[in-house]
């Protein structure tokens, strides 16, 4: 859409929990920025509460949760829960990290749109967010 009011897709790239592995999150943040999106990188050690607040405050279209600590089945549902509790239902939620295949169906049932596991290409991730995050026009 070329409407004058269309704005850049806003993405929060977040690191939930105590996990310090930020190589992938930083690469994605940079790739999304290079692709013309507005990126807010939360930095490390974010609680689910902090992430939900950032998503809401930044009026994000999408949030990418990066977890390589094995704590994803506690932290991702918590973020999704908090967003729902605030009636935020139009934010694209994606997850990246060391997520075993067995856990993916449950995450998707919670509303996670995609799970990107080791080996996923950067272009694939950027395209997915571009295609699936709804751009909201300024009112």
């Amino acid at each position: 859409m070329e409407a004058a009011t269309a704005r850049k897709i806003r993405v929060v790239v977040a690191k939930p929990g105590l996990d310090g592995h930020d190589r992938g999150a930083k690469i994605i943040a940079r790739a999304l920025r290079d692709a013309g999106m507005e990126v807010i990188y939360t930095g490390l050690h974010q609680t689910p509460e902090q992430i939900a607040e950032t998503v809401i405050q930044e009026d994000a279209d999408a949030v990418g949760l990066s977890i390589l600590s094995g704590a994803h089945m506690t932290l991702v549902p918590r973020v999704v829960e908090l967003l729902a509790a605030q009636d935020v239902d139009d934010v694209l939620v994606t997850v990246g990290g060391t997520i075993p295949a067995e856990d993916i169906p449950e995450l998707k049932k919670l509303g996670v749109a995609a799970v990107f596991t080791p080996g996923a290409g950067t272009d694939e991730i950027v395209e997915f967010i571009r295609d699936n995050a709804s751009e909201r026009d300024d009112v």
Partner: protein
Amino acid sequence: MAIEPREKPEFKEREVEFSTMSGHPIEPLYGPEHAPADSETTIGEPGEYPFTRGPYPSMYRGRLWTMRQFAGFGTVEETNERFHYLLDHGQTGLSTAFDMPTLMGYDSDHHRSLGEVGREGVAVDSLDDMEQLFDGIPLGGVTTSMTINAPAAILLAFYVLVGEEQGVSPEKLGGTIQTDILKEYIAQKEWCFPIEPAMRLVTDMIEWCTENMPRWHPVSISGYHIREAGSTAQQELAFTLKDGFTYVERALERGLDIDDFAPRLSFFFNAHIDFFEEVAKYRAARRIWAREMKETYGAKREESMRLRFHAQTAGVSLTAQQPLNNVVRTSLEALAAVLGGTQSLHTNSFDEALALPTEEAVRVALRTQQVIAVESGVTNTADPLGGSWFVEKLTDEMEEAAYGYFARIDELGGMVEAIRRNFPQREIADAAFTYQRELDERKRIVVGVNDFVQDGEEPTPILRIDPALERKQVDRLAATRARRDGVAVEGALAELKRAAATEENLMPPIIAAARARATEGEMIAAMQEVFGTYTESPVF
């Protein structure tokens, strides 16, 4: 004039960039013209300054490297079982992985620990846990490595007290504790305090161990994590050594004698997949460290100049796709570490791209080391690749690159200031991004990921951490708190706080608090009241 054989059309090179994975260009051929002019001084002999060829004269003919598999998950019971499994299958040293809460200074019942207990390593909250962790393992008869940094002093206190309970005095304990806090701010990102108080703790540990634990390595100056975060091999080498120099400087400022503490400094490098670059990296590391210890820091003893290291095969090189290929990767990487003269080695398991290793997978990883050690013949002579025109040239070039980085860091005011200005962090982020682009554009290939791909793979069975273990640990912790003398703990924590605000060495009050069953989280919180906490300003 005849055409050079290499120029002939039938020998034309493939349209590929011939460089290491770090982007270092490689010549089609290396010959005598690449040999260093002063090889007798710069290459020398193993066991002699500058130790390019190895820290010991006989290398593996005298003693094989320690086979030391990093292990830890769930509670101390599960990890103690894995320790015994590994020892029974022939490993020769212990290595402990702690969970995220323990690494970050949180007790298992802290709200931030929810969902994280026992996931990335073993949960240890108090001395009670530590006793169980080493159940049936005589600390006087084994060396143990502990991967923990910001709370290292506390875990060392726990270990010393377990030794004491076993009747092993601290001076008999052998092993290593990672403690290397600078690389945390740079790469591994596990911190509790701001940089200066954290550095004070490192120096306290070096000082205390120099006096009380002559067989112990109080620091493992690490490049592994820097490399895993995405650095090049040259950056791994440079940032690691520069961190090491910084610890040396702080210890000297404290008034310690270099020849008293330097012999007990140890290192930890990555063993990545670009074979010859890794071998060159280790050899350059030894030469640089020896020269700087002698010429810059005034060391007189050979033991102070001799760089000894542990290596771990590169976690980031493992793929989730076609996991058996990881056995091949780990083997090549392990071989590079051995040909580079490592003193201790961890080999990754083939299933580790997505989880901690199963028993079967870690057994194969251990067997990999054993096959190299007893079947391959590479241990028959010291530094077998020494004298290779390629390897010697690459060693020289690695050294040159490192000195380039030392100069840039010095210009910024030293490593601590460089970290504050995000210099190493930015270098790493740039290198990581460049590498990822090369993969995305298929300029660099990873088998099974962007070529030689296989559809419809069956998922590999992986280790699942039972969520019930978190509850179990929280209950253990509650029992510890109920059992202990609460008044004594409060007193010990108050004393720790008091000492933290002075310049006293913190090991004694930490040991006293540990003995009273103060928990790790309580001790960290007490120190944070004095030191504050740390938040990074990330760059990407």
